[in-house]
């Protein structure tokens, strides 16, 4: 038997939280090629922005993706601030780091849960999501909402973290660190998990670079590239070092994310410690006139915002290049040769966010 069978993987599929279709061409059980079929979540946000006030656009960018929403708004606000020459107060920069890192924590925990679920490891999924609730509670206590915070604004942030919030954050992080330690062992050392991830979906460093992968997908293949190295917001003052693994398989991507969670906890602690006292926002007057490119690191990789204003209150153009968009070519290189049963694990290992990709 060497007939080619085509299997539509998605758009409605148990392991996919979002609709995307991978049209898999199979020879027996082996994938020969994969073709992504997209457009199920396309809304047309980039056009919508042209009809809204540039301050209202912050809320739209938060809803590009509900998982890393705060980081999207940071990218947008930084871009507008660059165009308008606004100097953000230092405390606001630190607060942006803190909420960005809580978003990274909850995004990585969410991804772990989904990955565990894709192995059929449902108990682990439940345990991970139980730990994740602590981060959401922390976001609610400090920023006022569980998922979409709405705290970032052009010129700074809306809320401050006072002494109570600081104590709560530190206590939550201590507990979370213990939880992650308990969860990381079953994830990384379990025989079943290793059988499903070690050597699966392997991609070489050269091919990863060629395909332009970003974020944990690139770092798991040995490319030490993390936008936080550029020191945007307050990352330049927090002694940041990117997490790198070299194997390039699903297990390496798992390891990168486990280590990044611990790193995020450490970064929040450092940010709380070094946060100076200052106002948290500056008033912004006028309209953006000019263009810029704003890049920040999301849980999934680098996001690029291109913004152009022409002196009116609406932006003339906004273009978003999201990390999953950059990672899909790498995913398509990982899939050929894989068993059909491993396709869900490989697909999830890049942490696909279709809502970002299609905007």
């Amino acid at each position, binding site marked *: 038997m060497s007939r080619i069978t085509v299997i539509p993987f998605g758009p*409605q599929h148990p392991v996919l939280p979002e609709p995307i279709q991978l049209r898999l061409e199979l020879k027996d059980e082996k994938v020969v090629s994969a073709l992504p079929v997209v457009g199920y979540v396309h809304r047309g946000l980039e*056009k919508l922005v042209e009809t809204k006030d540039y301050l209202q656009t912050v809320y739209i960018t938060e809803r*590009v993706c509900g998982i890393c929403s705060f980081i999207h708004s940071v990218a947008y606000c930084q871009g507008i601030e660059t165009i308008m020459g606004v100097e953000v107060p230092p405390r606001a920069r630190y607060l942006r780091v803190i909420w960005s890192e809580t978003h990274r924590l909850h995004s990585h925990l*969410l991804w772990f849960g989904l990955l565990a679920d894709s192995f059929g490891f449902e108990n682990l999924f439940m345990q991970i999501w*139980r730990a*994740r609730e602590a981060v959401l509670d922390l976001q609610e206590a400090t920023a006022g909402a569980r998922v979409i915070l709405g705290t970032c604004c052009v010129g700074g942030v809306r809320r401050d973290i006072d002494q109570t919030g600081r104590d709560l954050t530190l206590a939550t992080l201590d507990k979370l660190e213990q939880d992650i330690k308990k969860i990381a062992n079953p994830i990384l050392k379990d025989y079943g998990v290793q059988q499903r991830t070690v050597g699966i979906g392997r991609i070489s460093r050269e091919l990863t670079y060629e395909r332009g992968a970003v974020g944990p997908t690139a770092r798991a293949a040995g490319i030490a590239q993390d936008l936080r190295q550029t020191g945007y917001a307050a990352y330049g003052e927090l002694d940041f070092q990117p997490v790198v693994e070299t194997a390039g398989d699903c297990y390496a991507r798992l390891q990168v994310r486990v280590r990044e969670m611990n790193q995020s906890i450490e970064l929040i602690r450092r940010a709380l410690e070094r946060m100076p006292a200052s106002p948290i926002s500056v008033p912004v007057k006028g309209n953006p006139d000019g263009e810029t490119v704003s890049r920040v690191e999301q849980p999934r990789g680098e996001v690029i915002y291109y913004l152009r204003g022409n002196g009116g209150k609406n932006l003339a153009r906004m273009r978003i290049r999201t990390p999953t968009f950059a990672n899909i070519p790498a995913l398509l290189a990982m899939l050929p040769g894989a068993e059909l049963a491993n396709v869900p694990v490989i697909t999830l290992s890049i942490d696909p966010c279709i809502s970002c990709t299609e905007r």
Partner: protein
Amino acid sequence: MKVLAKSPWAVHFNCNSCNGCDIEFLACLTPLYDLERFGVLHIGNPKHADILVVTGSVNHRNARVLENVYIQVPDPKVVVAIGVCTSTGGIFADCYNILGGIDKVIPVDVFVPGCPPRPEAIIDGMVQSLAKLEAKRAGKKVEPARKPTFTFRPPAEAEAPVTPSPAGSAGRGGKE
């Protein structure tokens, strides 16, 4: 009697959502909120489901997929629409690719407002849907839900004062 309402299985379809509502719905299934205490089990196959949980609005491409998923859910079935996008399109209502709320494609039994709704509101919506599921099983006629009036007013009533939402059409919203 009441067997169905004690173990309703839910299938989730993300229509055009930003993921905010999806992760809140998934959070409802996990130990802190634990929808399973009402017997709700999340499954991937629409043919095994009683409740169709939809997030997000419809666009030209996924309207057909949503309809297909809805048809595959066996009768009696209820549709729970989570988030403001499902009733009007929400923040994306003005986008060129958005057709509007999912009620343009399938009948909706419970609207849960919020952007995103809190898990408590989602649980409330799911529990309300169980009563409708039981009524449908008993062969009673169940009217489709009205949209939550504090997030949406039909154009004809736009001038009329805001009335409290009718029972059964809205959960307690988040911080609107």
